[in-house]
């Protein structure tokens, strides 16, 4: 039972991370029918930039190990903001280099161009930080909380709380603000949106900035759980992509729900047999897509004949 509760907690934390990144996929897919296939590489500067900023602030070189005391809540907060912002700005470069030339072009050239951008980003990070991983202490310390006998790591709670807050905030923005309306208008019909005076390209860039910033945020949030390294991104982003497809790429709430669902399945299967996690997850997804090709909460588009 305690093992079950523990798995539940880490599943929710992991699911929140998947949900964050998946929401980013939804926002750009809705506006451009493309998304960043190299998103995994965006988690890398997310975690490493943040950690290095904390290291530099305590007078250490940008690559090294942090003492738990050096990771104060303020430092972590500032690092998180900086990471999110910087990776968000990388999103602008991503748009101009890898997306803009291919928007509206049939085929999957944008898949390869975004993967290419990711490879360059990852190798730039490799040149700066090297291949070794950095252990990142949590600002809440490493003592486990005991809830109903289950040991829950404080960082997991922090991750879940921050991710849920950000998701709720973005959900509000998408539904209730002028920016959200503009995003949805561009998603529905870019030509019509530009006729009513919406700067479509600006909206699309904002979409990529948000999507990239979410990946950056995910990177720094997950760093104290997984450690920070050049190689953490791929697996996480692949599962976030799975979460988006599972929930329904066209539905933002579906993407978030897909994230939690996937995180929980992963943690619970891990209880049974750790090596069966990926196999189970991807088999489930294949079966779900055969039954519901648009995902669990996606709306099926009927092609007009």
């Amino acid at each position: 039972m305690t093992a079950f509760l523990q798995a539940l907690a880490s599943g929710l934390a992991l699911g929140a991370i998947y949900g964050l990144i998946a929401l980013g996929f939804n926002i750009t897919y809705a506006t451009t029918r493309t998304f960043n296939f190299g998103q995994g590489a965006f988690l890398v500067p997310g975690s490493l930039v943040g950690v290095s900023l904390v290291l530099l602030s305590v007078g250490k070189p940008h690559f090294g190990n942090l003492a738990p005391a050096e990771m104060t809540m303020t430092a972590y907060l500032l690092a998180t903001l900086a990471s999110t912002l910087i990776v968000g700005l990388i999103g602008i470069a991503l748009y101009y280099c890898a997306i803009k030339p291919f928007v509206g072009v049939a085929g999957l050239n944008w898949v390869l161009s975004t993967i290419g951008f990711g490879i360059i980003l990852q190798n730039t990070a490799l040149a700066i930080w090297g291949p070794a991983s950095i252990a990142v202490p949590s600002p809440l310390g490493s003592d486990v909380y005991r809830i109903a006998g289950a040991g829950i790591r404080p960082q997991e709670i922090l991750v879940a709380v921050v991710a849920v807050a950000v998701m709720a905030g973005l959900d509000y923005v998408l539904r209730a603000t002028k920016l959200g309306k503009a995003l949805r208008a561009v998603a529905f019909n870019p030509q019509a949106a530009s006729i009513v005076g919406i700067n479509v390209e600006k909206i699309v860039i904002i979409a990529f900035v948000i999507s990239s910033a979410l990946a950056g945020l995910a990177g720094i949030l997950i760093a104290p759980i997984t450690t920070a390294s050049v190689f953490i991104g791929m697996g996480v982003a692949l599962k976030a992509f799975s979460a988006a497809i599972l929930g329904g790429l066209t539905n933002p709430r579906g993407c978030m729900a897909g994230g939690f669902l996937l995180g929980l399945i992963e943690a619970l299967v891990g209880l049974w047999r750790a090596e069966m996690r990926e196999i189970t997850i991807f088999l489930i997804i294949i079966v779900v897509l055969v039954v519901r090709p648009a995902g669990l909460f996606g709306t099926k588009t009927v092609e007009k004949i």
Partner: protein
Amino acid sequence: MRAPLHAAGLAAILGALALVPLLPINDFYLQILFTIGVNYLAAAGLNVLVGFAGQKSLGHAGLFAVGAYAAALANVDFGLPPWLSLVLAAAMGGLFGLVIAAPSVRVSGPSLAMVTIGFGIVVEKIVTEWTDLFKGQAGIYGIAAPSVMGKSFTNLHWVLFVGLLCVLTHLVLRSLLNGRYGRAFMAVQLAEPAAESVGISVVRAKTLAFVISAVTCALAGALVAQQNQYFNSDFITFNLSIFLLVVVIFGGSGSLYGPLFGSVILTLLDAWLARWPALQHFTYGALLLFALYLMPNGIAGALARLAPRSGGPMRPAITASAALSRGQTGTSAGGGPLLAVSGLYKAYGGIIPVKDVSFTISPGKVHALIGPNGAGKTTLINLISGHVPPDRGHILFAGAEIARMPAHRIAASGIARTFQNLKLFGHLSALDNVLIGAHLHVETGLGAALTGLPANRRAEAEAREEALALLSELGLGERAGDAASALPYGLQRRLEIARALATRPRLLLLDEPAAGLNPQETHELGAVIRRIQAAGITILLIEHHMDLVMGISDHVIVLDYGEKIAEGTPETIRRNPKVVAAYLGLEEGA
């Protein structure tokens, strides 16, 4: 590529292969040549799937693994001879091609990407974690290589063997893709509903493409395992799936020669940059990022733009009217109606575009279906052609129930159609569009198409003659070589009719064939429809041009809000108060 040029190219490659043993090439270069060959094999099959059938797979590393492990285990665990293991590996590849096709053909776009990624990762995890059987990262040692005259393959043998396999694969795929199968794949990629409307089974076409790509990919994996004499799970990664896709797309997907360019250039680049791993990754990334921007259709596409397009005049030998009346086996047995629709009903939520509609179509006549916008006319056509399944009701065609049959089988039974929103195969030539229409009548089995037997060539030549004759009949003879999308709008509408006629229908459904035509073109269309009728083909036509409808129809059916409100001769319809009310918006009896 023209035949003489192709023959010269083949001779050059075979000549180069023959020269390899005579040249002082060391093992390093032999290994590079071998890798080029293996990458070509995998990419050539994947190109059928990605470039022709339009199904982007991000999981072919899984199929590479199937081949490699099948060859390895067959030899090491079961003691089968290497040659047999190789054949077995290709067969296992084909089997797993079916396995991945089963879910893949049901989804498209990002969901297809997900299903294929999922397949690749499941295979990767299985071979990594199931160490009892697959030995995981430790790997399988001592995989025997095939031997010639009792001597095990040297690197030189490998290069020659793989080179010959590549040439063979190229010839087989070339024969397949230049004929009806290649056209069917393209049709599925460009417009699925249109492909179904000419009798192509989309599911079968996609499945075949998956199996072809799986066989070559598995073969590539098996060759690597045998040549290495060792294989472990580190070979099978998501990156391998991406790499194979890059070879295809960078080389030029949808071109027969794309995989050749892709495998040669990327393998050489890889080998040349291997000394500087960091630079290698940056180059790879930059290539992905910018190459497609500069060359959207890959290297093959860029080269094709440099070469002049050759297109000589094309003249049919058979007369046009003969082409029109092919496949007309007279009226349906017993002299009953050709089509009998009864109680047909379709609802989308609260909207009911077709509400308990019944009518009959007599053979040899022109029937018109009219009604205000939104009356349910196109939905009715979609129900008859099988593109949309009805909720209830019956459709009897020549006495046989066709309601709820898949569209491609309805097409095969003798119902052809055009689309209100044109669904031509855009960048293919007008001739190819009509040839795709003739899909069911190019009598070639898969075996004949793969081997390029004379029977196959004869069937292709006949189909071409007939297609050209149809194009002349519809006034498109001079434009046969032009891309469909380059034709003026009026001619595009006619091309859709030509494509539908190529299926040799008994019933032709025309959905607003005069939409967007000027009065002169509309008048000419009337004459075309009369000629089609004269050839014995029954017509059901949706149209808004009342001059056209009243001028050529024998029988008119009027729909309003999904219900049939009147039917009869053009004269009686013109005077029917209900019809007048529906069109002019008057209250009944006013």
